[in-house]
């Protein structure tokens, strides 16, 4: 069970363990340590740790990290005549994304990128606005009811997005009351459905991503310290001031998470604009799908994917900085 203290080995664990329990005994000769109540040696412990993570990490490296690296590499390659990849190092794909075509400059792709960011932002704002009162409502229910409400919010979200979007198509089709109402209001022509349109896309996206905003907001609302609100009431603060100074700041962490969780999938969405939108609402997701599908232009598809990743990460970093700043207020 216990190895002799003389036994040594190269170990990934530093001499002073990172956890509270791992300590070295003796002046470097012995490597005995106690970890979670178990007397062991650094060597044994590291071997076991590696044994645990070996297979899952191999899987993640093989099917996640390396493919991501391959995607980056392909983004700098060229498309062959038959859609095959011709390995080279070219910035052509990115030039094309920026609008420098064979003949002249066009902003089509930039429009798509910009529209994607805009649609994701609008979706996020709507989702948060709808979720905020919902989160307060759920948190005000008795505990058993809260779980029921949370389940009610989560259930549609767990239904496949294709089905949910398809349901909206049905609801927005020409013979349904919504389309007729819109026609009566003079918004659309007779005998047309409400899709494809940018509004249909917004509705579909907000309903798809709502739980991403509701759940983190609910978590922070549930943990609200109401004594601060009561203190503010004692001090005759107006309702507005109470909300903005005693409630809102407390929900900032949840709000940040809500925005991040909604924004990321909204940036990469493909199903909703594909089914509820038209050519005018083409988003990055559709563009990527096109390259890997019909156009069979993997290098350009990879380049667009990289652009999407960069945009998402940029948004994340911006939000994190904003989030950190908010906590200092």
């Amino acid at each position, binding site marked *: *069970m*216990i190895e002799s203290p003389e036994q040594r080995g190269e170990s990934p664990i530093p001499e*002073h363990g990172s956890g*509270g*329990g791992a*300590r*070295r*005994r*003796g002046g470097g000769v012995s490597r*005995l*340590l*106690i970890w979670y*109540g*178990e*007397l062991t040696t650094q060597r044994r412990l590291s071997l076991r740790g590696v044994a645990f993570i070996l297979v899952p990490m191999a899987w993640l490296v093989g099917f996640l990290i390396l493919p991501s690296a391959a995607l980056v590499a392909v983004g700098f390659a060229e498309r062959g005549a038959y859609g095959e990849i011709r390995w080279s190092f070219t910035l052509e794909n990115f030039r094309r994304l920026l609008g420098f075509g064979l003949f002249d400059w066009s902003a089509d792709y930039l429009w798509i990128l910009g529209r994607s960011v805009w649609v994701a932002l609008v979706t996020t704002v709507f989702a948060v606005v709808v979720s905020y009162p919902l989160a307060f409502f759920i948190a005000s229910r008795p505990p058993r009811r809260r779980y029921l409400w949370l389940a009610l919010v989560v259930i549609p979200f767990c239904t496949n997005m294709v089905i949910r979007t398809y349901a909206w198509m049905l609801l927005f089709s020409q013979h349904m009351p919504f389309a007729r109402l819109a026609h009566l209001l003079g918004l659309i022509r007779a005998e047309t459905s409400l899709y494809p349109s940018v509004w249909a896309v917004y509705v579909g996206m907000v309903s798809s991503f709502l739980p991403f905003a509701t759940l983190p907001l609910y978590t922070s609302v549930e943990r609200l310290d109401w004594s601060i609100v009561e203190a503010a009431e004692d001090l005759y603060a107006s309702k507005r001031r109470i909300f903005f100074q005693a409630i809102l700041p407390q929900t900032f962490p949840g709000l940040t998470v809500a925005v991040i969780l909604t924004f990321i999938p909204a940036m990469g969405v493909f199903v909703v604009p594909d089914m509820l939108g038209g050519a005018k609402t083409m988003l990055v997701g559709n563009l990527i799908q096109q390259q890997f599908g019909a156009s069979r232009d993997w290098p350009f598809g990879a380049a667009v994917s990289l652009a999407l990743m960069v945009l998402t990460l940029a948004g994340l970093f911006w939000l994190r900085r904003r989030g950190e700043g908010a906590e200092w207020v």
Partner: protein
Amino acid sequence: MDRPSAESASPAADRLRKGFASGLRFLKSFPADHNLRPATADSIVAGMATFAETRSALCVEGVCKSFGEVQVLTDIGFEVSSGEFVTLLGPSGCGKTTLLRILAGLELADRGRVMLDGREMTGIPANRRPVNTVFQNYALFPHLSVRENIAFGLRSRRFSESAVAERVGVALQILQMESLVGRYPHQLSGGQKQRVALARALVNEPELLLLDEPMSALDAKLRAEVQIELRRLQRRLGKTFILVTHDQDEAMTVSDRVLVMSDGRIVQSGTPAEVYERPVSRFVAEFLGSANLISGSRVNGHVETIHGPLSVSGSPGWSRGTLAIRPERIRVCSRRPGMNGVSARVREVIYRGDHMDLFVEPGALRVRTAPRADLRAGATIWLALEPEYLVPLSD
């Protein structure tokens, strides 16, 4: 051991006594072919019969421990006799819990060694040490019933089902928990959890029981009761107990010996009376109860202070230093006492029901006395600071 005892005045103690008696009968009736490890079963019965015999059960030598740059324990050394109840007393962060964890095998000392019954413990993992622990928050297994929690240590050593049932039964009886067996930890009160934790440790008949602030989660009234019960339990079982606490009352109540710790060192060791009445330093004097500290300088056999010259029994080892005297050791006299008399004016009187606290001038002395109607603020009184209670401190 089974003699009727004056302590068993309360029905609880009586039940305890009966429970123990039957437990002991049961233990003595152990057939030899029980799958107990011989070291455990035999030594327990033997140990119980001869608990009064004093031999060093635990010996700690030169233990040092640091976490990174922070030196938590410095050259800790002490011995504990078999059947002794020792308390490690100190403020939080003094290293007492770390020391306990080293004894339990949950932490490794950087240097020094721990001997249990003459056996070096350093290379022995926690799960092979004949030592059990009552953890601070009890660490009961939430998915196991009270019975299974208590049986855990027996089952992990592959005791037979009947041995487990019998031992658990005895433990339940000793701690009067028969009615709780089917419950789960989340269905127990703080006091009940503590009993389960105690039973879970004791059922293994450890040579050494460690208790890490076992009362800290209990309310004050319950705590006082449990302390006395714990003390009686230890006496009856004759086991070696080491308790960690920051509560000096607790330490006084339960222990045979108190080791006062400060900044990773043992600063004083002795019976509760010794450490209370003869503190060696300001820290000990002030950490255990309240103390009047009087600074002075030694002049020909007595100490010159702002209260005048005071005689001290035994010569202080300094020329300028501090004397300590407990408030309740200062006697209030109506006329000048024969020795070490101090004239004082009562500045403030605080009535506490069973006693009175007086704050007197000059020198801000605090005096504790039986309640008396004639002591009012402004009264002039005589105080006797008797030499035997004036303790010269080392610092």
